[in-house]
């Protein structure tokens, strides 16, 4: 990437130079990009950029969504940091992020398992990827059913092994793990497909050379293969972190944050406070905290990208 993009920027520099030579052309290509960008920029500003700023602004007000807004400074944040619900949600978010980090290595393991050329392997790969294609609402339904204490698959297995049935989604200590497992299912599938593509593009000469040097097993994977898979690993980690922080759909469909708010996450807490409790300002404050956490990753991603463009 680094070498190819530096080539491109050289080319671009050449273009600019040739544009500078003829003054008239420079004008046309001065205005043109803004004509092409216009529609996208306008709608993106209205629906994405302005709302981000507006939400930050709103988080300093008390507002029920209809009546007058009252400015209360950092009041919402003070209340937030004092609330148990917030710390439960934040802890759950961290748990999501930590456990979601299992997705890239598990995706890699499945990709290594499937990276063969036997009859029907295309279909097998497609079926493994399946969970990512279906809606998270359906994944949530599927897993609620899977965990059901009276007829779920999981409890059939447990009672077959002689254990007592457990109701994962009604147990305060287990519920978040249960939802995270459901979330990992499509996430692993996504990481798998990233790694399969990465494996397809390995440098064969390096592999052969390493094999001649008698590299095998784990050493081969760690020193020869993984360094070549770095771009795939980077993307896999980025989408996994974002997936973990976006964990709304599954919480909403499987438990609605319950039992007693024990499985809530910041995304769901924000929705609940604003839509059910009509506390828009407070909800906005929750959203701002989530946004700030996400910003760390956004900043890192952008920094990496801009660096590679230059």
């Amino acid at each position, binding site marked *: *990437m680094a070498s190819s993009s530096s080539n*491109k920027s050289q080319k671009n520099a050449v*273009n600019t130079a040739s544009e500078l030579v003829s003054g008239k*052309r420079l004008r*046309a*290509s001065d205005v*043109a*990009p803004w004509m092409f*960008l216009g529609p*996208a*920029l306008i*709608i993106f500003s*209205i629906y*994405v950029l*302005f709302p*981000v700023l*507006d*939400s930050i602004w709103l988080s300093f007000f008390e507002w029920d969504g209809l009546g007058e807004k009252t400015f209360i400074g950092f009041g919402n944040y003070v209340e937030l940091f004092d609330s148990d619900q917030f710390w439960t949600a934040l802890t759950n978010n961290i748990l999501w992020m930590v456990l979601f980090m299992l997705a890239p290595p598990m995706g890699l393991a499945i990709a290594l398992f499937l*990276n*063969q050329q036997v009859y029907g*392997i295309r279909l097998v790969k*497609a*079926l*493994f*990827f*399946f969970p990512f*294609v279906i*809606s*998270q*609402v*359906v994944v949530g*339904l*599927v*897993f609620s*059913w*899977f965990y059901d204490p009276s007829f*779920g*698959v999981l409890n059939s297995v447990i009672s077959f092994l002689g254990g007592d049935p457990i109701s994962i989604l009604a147990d305060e200590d287990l519920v978040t793990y249960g939802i995270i497992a459901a979330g990992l*299912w499509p996430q692993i599938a996504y990481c798998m*497909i*990233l790694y399969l593509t*990465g494996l397809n593009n390995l440098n064969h000469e390096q*592999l052969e050379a390493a094999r001649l040097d008698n590299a095998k097993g784990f050493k081969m994977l760690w020193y020869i293969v993984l360094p070549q898979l770095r771009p795939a690993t980077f*993307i896999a980690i980025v989408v996994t972190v974002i997936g973990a*922080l976006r964990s*709304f759909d599954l919480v*909403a*469909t499987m438990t609605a944050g319950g039992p007693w708010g024990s499985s809530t996450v910041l*995304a769901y807490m924000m*929705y609940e406070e604003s839509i059910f409790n009509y506390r828009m300002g407070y909800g906005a404050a*929750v*959203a*701002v905290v*989530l*946004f700030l956490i*996400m910003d760390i*990753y956004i900043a890192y*991603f952008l920094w990496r*990208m801009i660096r590679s*463009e230059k």
Partner: protein
Amino acid sequence: MYPRPIEKASAFTNISYRVALPISIVLWLLPLIAVMATSVRSLDDINQGNYWGWPSEWMLIENYTQVFTSTPMFQYLLNSLIITLPAVAGCVALSTMAGFALAKYNFKANIWIFATFIAGNFVPFQILMIPVRDLTIQFGLYDTHWALILFHIAFQTGFCTLFMRNFIVGLPTELIESARVEGVSEFKIFWHIVLPLVKPATAALAVLVFTFIWNDFFWALVLVQSDEVRPVTAGLSALQGQWLASWQLISAGAVVAALPPVILFFTMQRHFIAGLTLGATKG
């Protein structure tokens, strides 16, 4: 090739690999298989605890017919289409233009605008929720298809512009340059030279964005509320609340809701994966 091709291994390894594959698929898709099996059972079977045995009677046609006759499932599916198709067309159109501008013109703000689109694509939905809901109400669009269409166009444009820009950057600049020398207008360059070249990329993008928008749940909860406009994700979730005991129907509904993106995926697999793994090989 890594790992080493299995054909070179012993016959025993080969056979066990081929046996392990179908077993692993069944284990991996077990939750889904359970739901599909439930969707063809009768209510009696479920009440009597026959979840895993052979169904006492096959209710395939009955259950799936009932989903369409006794619930607004057909309306939900229609709504999803009415929302998704124009939104996909809008995103692809806007982002092809924006991607072209960012890829082939050199101007000061270029990299910053590009960075803004990428950053916007990563923000959590919740930070947009209250203002977007207010805007939608102010525009008089709350609880209409347009509420979702416009928002999806705006939000997905971030990702789509990233995608199109990276694709168009790789196209040869010489062609565009020589057209300019001939005095062809910028718009005609876009229309006659760039557009034909990006067609394969727009197909990949359209397939991917279709799935993203079809599967959206959050905005369907926030921006619409009546059965006449609700897409299938929110509809299914509402039905789950209403038919708590009728698992065979909920399962059938879930299968129906999942079908369109699945069909699209299987027919356009190559495009789909090309879109998703953008950056995985050279990121």
